[in-house]
């Protein structure tokens, strides 16, 4: 924001947004067969930001809510548990909070349809669609399952043993970035994906001569492909794969890896296969009647062996954020971050608002040479970047 945040208005704004987004006003409960979400009758809270970003949510301290809203000076942060929604759904909720907050401060903003309004609650059809599970709705039994995936190349670096993650953000002009990406006949996502592939190749892959492919996990907003208006989690993904078999590996080659994968994978048919892979187990009655504690054990073992082994790194581009006209007077920029874990120790996410593109890295690695390489590559293309971080020097 361009001004310091006033917490008392922020709480009120959050309450208003929770009325509009009932799927966020929930707590998680344990059933006999499944976990389930139930309405949370408690009042939400906002708290001061801690620079330990993206830690697990303490449900007791957070009154059972599966998201945390915090602030520090002029910044508002929203961290969301993935079972509530994906990046796009979460951003809609966050936009609503920001809009309500600004309105409570008498900013005089008029909602031009870019933010989900409270009045829409009267539209039963819309609300029904928003709270529906689009995965189940778009599940087709007659499509093939997605092919099983091979283990991916893993970045082997020393990582922080505590729950600390480095957050490094670079601010740049989205127009400039778009212009450079166009020179390679690529979108911003394809261009940045290419840079990440090149950085992994030059810094890690070349040295250890692994036979495993580098796989970049890129979430895809499935709403566009299936005409869904759901606010709940409806994200699919593609994995761009590079085996670096070419003689000359440069940025163009790497961008081509991403472009080829996008061309092949971003079709409704392929995404339907992904949906089937995600949902088919849930549909089996024999598995549904297995008690929750057994499901938990199985899922944990499965995640341990398969979960993150098939990704080298995570990268997501949320796209352009639209807010009501005049918002830029109050809002400087939007940021978007993805969590990382010990097996996939670094993730990258980008978002653009009002010609400011912010690329954020969340890293558990002690060495930031990958981030440095990416920034230098972007810098070499003539894009000026400004960097900020949560590292204060003590870590």
């Amino acid at each position, binding site marked *: 924001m361009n001004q310091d945040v006033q917490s008392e208005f922020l709480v009120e704004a959050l309450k208003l947004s929770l009325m509009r987004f009932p799927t966020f006003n929930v707590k998680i409960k344990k059933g*006999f067969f*499944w976990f389930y979400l139930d309405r949370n009758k408690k009042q939400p809270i906002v708290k001061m930001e801690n*620079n330990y970003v993206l830690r697990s949510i303490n449900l007791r301290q957070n009154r059972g809510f599966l998201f945390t809203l915090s602030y*520090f000076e002029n910044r508002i942060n929203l961290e969301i548990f993935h079972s509530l929604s994906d990046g796009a759904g979460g951003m809609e909720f966050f936009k609503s909070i920001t809009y309500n907050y600004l309105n409570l401060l008498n900013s005089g903003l008029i909602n031009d349809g870019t933010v989900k309004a409270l009045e829409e609650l009267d539209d039963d059809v819309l609300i029904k669609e928003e709270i529906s599970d689009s995965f189940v709705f778009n599940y087709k039994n007659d499509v093939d399952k997605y092919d099983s995936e091979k283990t991916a190349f893993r970045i082997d670096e020393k990582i922080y043993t505590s729950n600390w993650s*480095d957050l490094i953000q670079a601010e740049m002009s989205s127009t400039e970035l778009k212009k450079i990406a166009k020179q390679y006949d690529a979108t911003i996502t394809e261009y940045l994906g290419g840079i990440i592939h090149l950085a992994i190749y030059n810094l890690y892959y070349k040295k250890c001569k692994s036979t495993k492919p580098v796989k970049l996990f890129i979430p895809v907003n499935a709403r566009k492909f299936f005409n869904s208006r759901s606010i709940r989690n409806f994200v699919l993904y593609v994995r761009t794969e590079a085996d670096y078999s070419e003689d000359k590996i440069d940025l163009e080659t790497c961008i081509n890896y991403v472009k080829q994968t996008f061309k092949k994978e971003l079709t409704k048919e392929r995404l339907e296969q992904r949906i089937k892979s995600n949902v088919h187990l849930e549909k089996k009655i024999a598995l*549904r009647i297995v008690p929750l504690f057994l499901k938990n054990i199985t899922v944990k073992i499965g995640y341990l062996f398969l979960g993150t082994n098939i990704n080298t790194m995570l990268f997501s581009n949320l796209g352009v954020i639209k807010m009501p006209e005049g918002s830029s007077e109050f809002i*400087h920029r939007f940021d978007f971050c993805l969590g990382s874990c010990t097996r996939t120790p670094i993730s990258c996410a980008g978002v653009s608002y009002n010609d400011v593109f912010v690329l954020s890295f969340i890293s558990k690695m002690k060495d930031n040479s990958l981030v440095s390489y990416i920034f230098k590559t972007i810098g070499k293309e003539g894009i000026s970047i*400004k960097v900020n971080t949560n590292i204060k020097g003590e870590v």
Partner: protein
Amino acid sequence: MRKCPECITEVTDDTHKCPVCKSKISGEITNRFVTYPTIYKVDRIRLYRFLFLLFSIISTIVVVIADFQVKSRNITIPHVFFILLLNVFIFNSLNFKKDISSRILLFDIFLMLYFLSLDYFVLIDRTEFLSLLYIAPIVLFASLSFMIFFSLIDNTFAFSSVLHILILIASGVLYYLITFSKSFEYLRIPSIVCFSLSVFCFLTMIIVHRKIVFEELKKRFHI
């Protein structure tokens, strides 16, 4: 704007290290819009864990010495057992994501284990277990009253409490079935009164909140 002398990155916040190459940077901060709060570590749980471990060890040693001093060695094992259980209970309560009823349930279990061990090690006549005949029904009734009281002052009806009470009642029924199958001699009037009151309270609670109970059961057992 501050620039890193090594990698020429423009750094906008108040960090002392370049986020990219980690070399030292200095200079005046011009843009305060992207600063982060100063680090503070929140790792209280480790501290609690350490303190309780320390407390357990010290209290156990003190109890053992005290028992030996007053020459009541028979009681040492239940005492040590109780202190350890109490520590586990307190630690579990601090670590909790649990509600009041689950804590009461846990406390009941620990309390009964203590009295059982007391019976076993101290009583000479082991045919009459005081803990089971008198204390268990009283604990059951007291716990149930507590849970109902807390749900009343909280003005919410927590379904999880119902489950916990159900566990208590079921264990009570089981005990009575076992005792009844042996002999009527083991049944005592105070325990029968307490147990009957517990069952009555439980059923009343279910009947009063039957709508919520059925809805909750539907959700919990949804396949």
